[in-house]
């Protein structure tokens, strides 16, 4: 396993270097930079723009350097834990994204737990009771969950929560707690608001997971080893849990790679609709205003999480099912 770990990490390192270069190229692709966007906005408002000041700011922000110099400055800064400077907030990027990262994590993690808690028993029930009324009913609900646009569900739930429970519209806490240090009251307010984005963001992924688990488990339940186990008199629950369920979980483990990046970008459109103080809307704003180091850092953190997620799922799969595929390559 150590050899696997070392080889796998050796693949991650060049991947991340390549991703950092691609991210930097992408955020440099739009014409102009943050200052040209700012000048255009000031001119549109009829405000005078001092060329000397612009030149000063360009030097101050390092925008007068060549793109290659800027890339290496950013890249080596990241290696030292310095994500760069946000032009728009006039603060280090790490300070700008700090609290939002925590709230994004809380929303994403709670959504993940909600998804697993709801999807797992339903998926198992649907597969073990195939073509029953329960299976049809739950499959119908699953299709509704898949088909409903998240932002529409968000608007409906916001209205319902306000009318039925008196919860303030939008945000992740009552307005009086915004920009306040964490306290017990603020924590309770976050909890009272959290269930709406969790349901909104989690519904489609729950429905997806139910369909996936049902299909995988049905495949496994029809295999010969299950029939043999049944014929030998193994108790149904033990037979289900010991082999087919474990095999059916492999796609879930393989899916970790796509779950982790949601911790950062997590449903940007839903966050805009619900005014959630998470990273999604800030990434959108940073891309619009060409706040290159802020946008680049978001994209880089997201890329890192994808690479780490795929790495984790590969490790888990290697530990749980280290099986050769017979059509695969040879061993050395």
């Amino acid at each position, binding site marked *: 396993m150590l050899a696997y770990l*070392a*080889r796998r990490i*050796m693949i991650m*390192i060049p991947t991340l270097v390549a991703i950092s270069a691609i991210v930097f190229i992408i955020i440099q692709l739009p014409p102009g930079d943050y200052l040209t966007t700012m000048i255009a906005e000031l001119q549109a408002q009829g405000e005078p723009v001092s060329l000397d000041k612009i030149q000063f700011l360009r030097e101050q922000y390092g925008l007068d350097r060549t793109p290659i110099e800027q890339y290496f400055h950013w890249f080596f800064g990241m290696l030292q834990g310095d994500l760069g400077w946000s032009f728009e907030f006039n603060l280090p990027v790490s300070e700008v994204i700090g609290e939002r990262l925590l709230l994004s994590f809380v929303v994403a993690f709670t959504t993940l737990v909600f998804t697993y808690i709801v999807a797992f028993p339903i998926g198992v029930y649907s597969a073990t009771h195939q073509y029953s009324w329960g299976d049809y009913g739950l499959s119908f609900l699953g299709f509704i969950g898949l088909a409903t646009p998240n932002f529409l569900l968000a608007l409906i739930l916001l209205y319902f929560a306000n009318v039925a429970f008196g919860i303030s519209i939008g945000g992740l806490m009552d307005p009086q707690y915004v920009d306040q240090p964490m306290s017990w009251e603020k924590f309770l307010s976050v909890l009272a608001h959290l269930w709406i984005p969790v349901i909104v963001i989690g519904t489609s992924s729950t429905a997806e997971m139910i369909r996936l688990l049902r299909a995988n488990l049905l495949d496994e339940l029809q295999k010969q080893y299950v029939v043999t186990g049944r014929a030998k008199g193994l108790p149904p629950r033990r037979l289900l849990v010991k082999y087919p369920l474990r095999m059916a979980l492999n796609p879930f483990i393989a899916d970790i790679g796509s779950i982790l990046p949601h911790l950062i970008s997590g449903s940007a459109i839903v966050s805009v609709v619900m005014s959630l103080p998470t990273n999604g809307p800030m990434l959108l704003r940073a891309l619009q205003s060409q706040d290159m180091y802020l946008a680049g850092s978001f994209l880089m953190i997201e890329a890192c999480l994808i690479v780490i997620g795929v790495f984790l799922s590969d490790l888990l799969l290697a530990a749980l099912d280290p*099986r*050769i*595929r017979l059509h695969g390559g040879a061993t050395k």
Partner: protein
Amino acid sequence: MIVYRYTPRALVGDYMRAGIGFALTAGPATIAPLGSVAQYVLAPLAGLFAVFAARTWIRHAARLEFGPERISLAGPRRASLAWSKLRSVKLSFYSTRGDRGEGWMQLTLRGAGGYDGETIRVDSALDGFADIALRAAVAARNNRLELSAATLANFGALGIEYPPPEQGAT
């Protein structure tokens, strides 16, 4: 008694991986500010590559003595396992490629503990790996061991039927 060693070609690759990995992680870890996130991430990775280099050297110096009664590891790490004391066999396949091609196998033989009952791990870069795997399958059958589905599939990929037929059986 037959003596097997790891092929130098496979070990050169692992030495290079360990060296490059250590340089790429230890270098930035030393220039990162003390106590920074980058240092917390990179320093353990550098440690991992250092351990990997040490393990590669141990494999380089290892000698596996293989006979009808026992299998023994000689070199920096010593272990011995009598086939009659074999209690668990695990044959795993690892690949870093998406299609799971071009991987390697690792055979883990666990004994009952104590003298001649130690754990021995060998991987497919070792000369004579297939012979050892076949002998392990025979010992597993003789000791009536239950093997996992992954191990059975991997034995199948090596062309080893499990349980292997008794000697002299048709």
